[in-house]
């Protein structure tokens, strides 16, 4: 057994810095690279791409990365685990195989983890008694059944471990939890049992620290953002995992960024619910058991983690079409910028009424004044400029388009010294809403397919 393994975070979300994973591989030793590509809305976009072309439905940026990085991964024997497969992990795997063949990487194994996509099984699942109620609101699935655009179960580390046991160098999954990507190599390397709750929980904590990329290593760091060196080439976090479940959070020395107790704490609380009850498919982790200790420059030891048995459910992420939004904006300059923006708001609202447009919500914010902090913001006497933002939400697309045509005319018909209309008419966007639900684990089985490049 290895004394410890290094699991490097390569990406916090689809659209994160492209060269971060390349730096993780080139700037120092790592054993695993984990990359998160998926969010609720991403699955819906990918499902749409797949419906147009059955060979699509995964993160194409990942293929662009593999063109650059795959030979080095193989040469350095770094294993890569990513959920870039989206709603079509097998197609993504085949695209990576094509690259591997072209680059002459014979013998390399690539795996796809799938079976999470239940979009075409919803009716059957409901018919056999799975309610798929919205776990936040309690509403029945019937309410949105004819508008569903994607539906995926969140798998945990198990199928990823299976792929590792089949010798896969690159593992491409569908909707596997972000934390599971980091936990899986620990189970595989250290032979942890599926009921060693404390160790599994430690792996989940490592996964939570890795899952948002540089957010654990100096990015978006409130307590000391001015202290963070070389943010233009920030080092993403690396979790050094030990067989007993101890972790050391660090980063490559040659890169920028900062790892200290404060950066790790900020990431630990990110998107956290009840800290004693961090539910994943493999274990329920207790975040109130986590102990941190700075043990060197850019090195934080994480230990003492406790876990409890998993629940009998998988979480399901269902996305559905829910009407449209449109947000328009104009910039008003000093003097009386805020008054002008407020007048513009009044005019648009009267126009909406005059034109008989129906919306579920009309929302105004003044950017530069109170858009972020709302009623908690402090008063500014005489701002130099204010961006007037007005958004509407509703089901009627025609009304949306009429609204979109109402913003720019204000330049010549409304309050003076106005600019910022260069983008023209604001875009009408489809709303893809999100429906979280639970599903009994026995209803779905993860599938693993490993192929060897010849």
């Amino acid at each position, binding site marked *: 057994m290895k004394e410890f393994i290094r699991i490097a975070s390569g990406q916090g979300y689809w659209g994160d810095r492209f060269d971060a994973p390349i730096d993780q591989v080139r700037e120092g030793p790592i054993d695993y690279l984990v990359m998160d590509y998926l969010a*609720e*809305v991403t699955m819906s976009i990918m499902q749409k791409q797949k419906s147009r072309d059955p060979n699509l439905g995964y993160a194409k940026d990942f293929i662009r990365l593999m063109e650059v990085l795959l030979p080095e991964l193989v040469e350095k024997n770094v294993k890569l685990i990513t959920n870039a497969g989206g709603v079509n992990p097998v197609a993504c795997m085949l695209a990576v195989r094509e690259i591997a063949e072209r680059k002459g990487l014979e013998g390399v194994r690539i795996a796809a983890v799938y079976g999470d996509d239940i979009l075409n099984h919803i009716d059957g699942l409901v018919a056999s008694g799975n309610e798929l109620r919205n776990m*936040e609101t309690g509403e029945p699935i019937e309410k949105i059944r004819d508008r569903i655009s994607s539906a995926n179960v969140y798998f945990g580390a198990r199928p990823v471990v299976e792929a590792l046991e089949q010798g896969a160098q690159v593992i491409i999954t569908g909707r596997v939890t972000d934390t599971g990507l980091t936990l899986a190599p620990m189970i595989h390397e250290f032979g942890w049992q599926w009921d060693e709750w404390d160790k599994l929980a430690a792996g989940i904590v490592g996964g939570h620290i890795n899952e948002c990329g540089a*957010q654990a290593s100096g990015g*978006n760091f*409130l*307590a000391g953002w001015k202290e963070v060196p070389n943010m233009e080439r920030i080092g993403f976090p690396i979790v050094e995992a030990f067989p007993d479940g101890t972790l050391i959070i660090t980063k490559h020395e040659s890169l920028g960024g900062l790892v200290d107790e*404060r950066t790790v*704490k*900020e*990431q*630990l*609380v*990110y*998107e*956290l*619910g*009840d*800290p*004693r009850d961090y539910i994943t498919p493999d274990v329920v982790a207790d*975040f*109130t*058991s*986590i*102990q*941190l200790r700075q043990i060197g420059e850019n090195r934080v030891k994480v230990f*003492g983690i406790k876990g409890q048995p998993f629940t009998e459910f998988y979480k399901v992420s269902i996305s559905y079409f*829910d009407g449209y*939004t449109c*947000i328009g904006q104009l910039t008003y300059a000093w003097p009386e910028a805020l008054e002008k923006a407020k007048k513009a708001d009044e005019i648009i609202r009267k126009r909406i009424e005059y034109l008989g447009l129906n919306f579920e*919500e009309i*929302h105004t*914010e003044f*950017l530069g004044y109170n*858009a*972020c*902090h*709302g*009623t*908690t*913001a*402090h008063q500014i006497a005489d701002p130099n400029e204010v961006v007037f*933002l007005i*958004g*509407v*939400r509703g089901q009627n697309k025609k009304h949306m388009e009429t609204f979109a045509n109402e913003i720019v005319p204000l330049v010549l018909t409304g309050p003076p010294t106005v600019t910022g209309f260069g983008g023209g008419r604001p875009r009408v966007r489809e*709303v*893809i*809403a*999100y429906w*979280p639900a639970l599903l009994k684990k026995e209803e779905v089985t993860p599938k693993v397919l490993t192929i060897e490049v010849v």
Partner: protein
Amino acid sequence: MKVKLIKLAHARSGDKGDTANVGVIALKAEFYEILKKEVTAERVKAHFGEMVKGPVERFEMPNIGALNFLLHNALGGGGTTTLKHDAQGKTMSTALLRMEIEVPDELFAGKD
């Protein structure tokens, strides 16, 4: 004396559907007890006023000197539905750190 919470704590916020989470972390270990006493769920709810339409829940994390708050119905329907500029509640962290709390006079004595 009254000071803004930002003198005692740092924070990070994010979204879970229409719920925003704000983790408030003591800048020094000895500040945690003050945070625990002063930054109650009720006062956080009052601080945000109409911005948070649902209840506020608080969870204690003495192990890292932090309090985690869940602000329900605070994001205009959530990430993809909302009309808010800050769709994911990313800046709710410092909005909360604007809150004024009572601290012992000697806590910052002799400093600025």
